[in-house]
């Protein structure tokens, strides 16, 4: 097939027929009245609902009580008086994965534990997020050469935020949590449907 040469001037001038709901609204000019602020270009209704739901989700991340190794002690330290993740409404550690939204993979995932971690993740109800904490969970860390350690928990479950450290300081945990909150803020149905950016 011959290479297609693109006439850029033509594209700029040609107006496509509006197809999607958004484009139709743009066409009529009504969009300006119902669009949200300029920095958040999207469908205002969906944006608002998305923002509200995401706010609910990011404000009440309940972690599942599952510590694997060293990092679990720092997980306890994070939830205790000095660092206190309760400020984010996260002190509600749920022992049952069904009621939890967030899993800290805190520690070395051994070959023997890997299927259980995966099972635990699968038992959690959607929407769910995973934070991989510490070198061991990220890559295998100091135990990378070991015969019975999984080289990174992202081999078995999807991970949203990685926190490096061995073990990470509580401040690093808090930073990781804030990153996850930021991430949740930008999720939503509007994003999925291409209406919000």
């Amino acid at each position, binding site marked *: 097939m011959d290479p297609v040469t693109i006439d850029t001037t033509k594209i700029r001038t040609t107006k496509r027929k509006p197809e999607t709901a958004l484009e139709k609204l743009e066409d009529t000019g009504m969009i300006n009245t119902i669009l949200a602020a300029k920095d958040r270009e999207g469908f205002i209704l969906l944006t608002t609902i998305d923002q509200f739901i995401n706010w*609910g989700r990011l404000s*009440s991340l309940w972690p599942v009580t599952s510590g694997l190794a060293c990092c679990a002690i720092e997980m306890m330290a994070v939830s205790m008086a000095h660092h206190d993740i*309760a400020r984010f*409404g996260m002190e509600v550690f749920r022992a049952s994965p*069904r*009621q939890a*939204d967030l899993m800290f993979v805190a520690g070395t995932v051994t070959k023997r534990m890997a299927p259980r971690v995966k099972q635990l993740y699968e038992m959690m*109800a959607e929407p769910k997020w995973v934070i991989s904490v510490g070198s061991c969970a990220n890559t295998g860390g100091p135990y990378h050469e070991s015969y019975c350690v999984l080289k990174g928990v992202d081999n078995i479950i999807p991970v949203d935020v990685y926190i490096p450290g061995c073990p990470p300081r509580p401040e690093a945990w808090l930073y990781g949590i804030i990153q996850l909150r930021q991430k949740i803020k930008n999720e939503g149905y509007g994003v999925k449907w291409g209406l919000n950016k």
Partner: protein
Amino acid sequence: MTTNAYDLIVAILSAIGLYDMILGFFQDIGAEYVLRIIIVLVVIAVVVVFVLLTVMFLSWLERKMFAVVQARYGPMVTGPRGLFQPIADGVKLLGKEDTIPAGADRWIFTLAPYIVFVSVLLVFIPLPFGKSLIVSDLKVGLLYIIAISAITPISILLAGWASNNKYSLIGAIRAVAQDISYTIPLAITAIAVVVFVGSLSMLDIVNAQSGYWFGIIPKWFIFLQPLGFILFLIACIAEMGRIPFDFQESEQELVAGFFTEYSGMKFAMFFLAEYAHLFAVSGIIVTIFLGGWNGPVIPLIPIELTSLVYFIIKTYAVILFTMWLRDTVPRVRIDQLLNLGWKIMIPLALLNLLVAAFVVTAGVI
């Protein structure tokens, strides 16, 4: 003279001169009963909204109180001092996936949380929030409350059984054993109060506690029956299933007890029911032993309002006490709890009843 919330609404409408007009309109179309239904629905809506708001506030209060005892701050980011935390929790739980385990009994599994919540809501019917602020003053109010409370263990058993999970089942069986052994001292202690009042109506119980002895000590039954009050309080905490008696959901033993398998909105129902139960039971304790809505009369302010304030203050005192208890003591063991119930509480409750009956028969008071 109004006696319940229905009458109060009618009285308010009459006072501002709207009632006759509305009544006239409905009489014209020959459907007076529609107006009655509407007023009843308004009363129900007000109570339900009030209870739900209280429940949300309580869940925040509990976390905050927990934090204060433990030298922390508690929720801070979500809203001022984390006050919107319960709303965020609610929004999140609403949007959460509703899992039903593979081996579960789907119908019962779905039904159980709603039974729990509804049975707790029903307790509020004969509960006087203030003078005239009562949905309906049942003649058998106290009996009704005890009977309705007995539905909760059944629905917990349903939940535990339907989950097809050993932890849930153990939790449910524990809950039933606990409720059976503590409803008995609860009822016997309540009867001791009824002996004094001579009526099962909650309103009569409150009215019997108005006034003062020697001009200073309020005529509350806590001063007449201190033993009865302590027994009733312990039995109530056991019935609510809170620490030190929270076996049905004891996290370190049974993961999450009978609601281990529940997620999303069904879990939220249990969550709501727990706090609604806490509020209801505290209200009952206040009504029976702490003088209900009685308190010093303040001139110029309508008694309906002051009585509501007194009731709320007293109820929150009881609630804070149970929360403080949760923060400081560990959990007892299930067999120790049953021992306490059957071998200590029931004999003491009977003794309390005996003394009360003797005092009343002898005509000392």
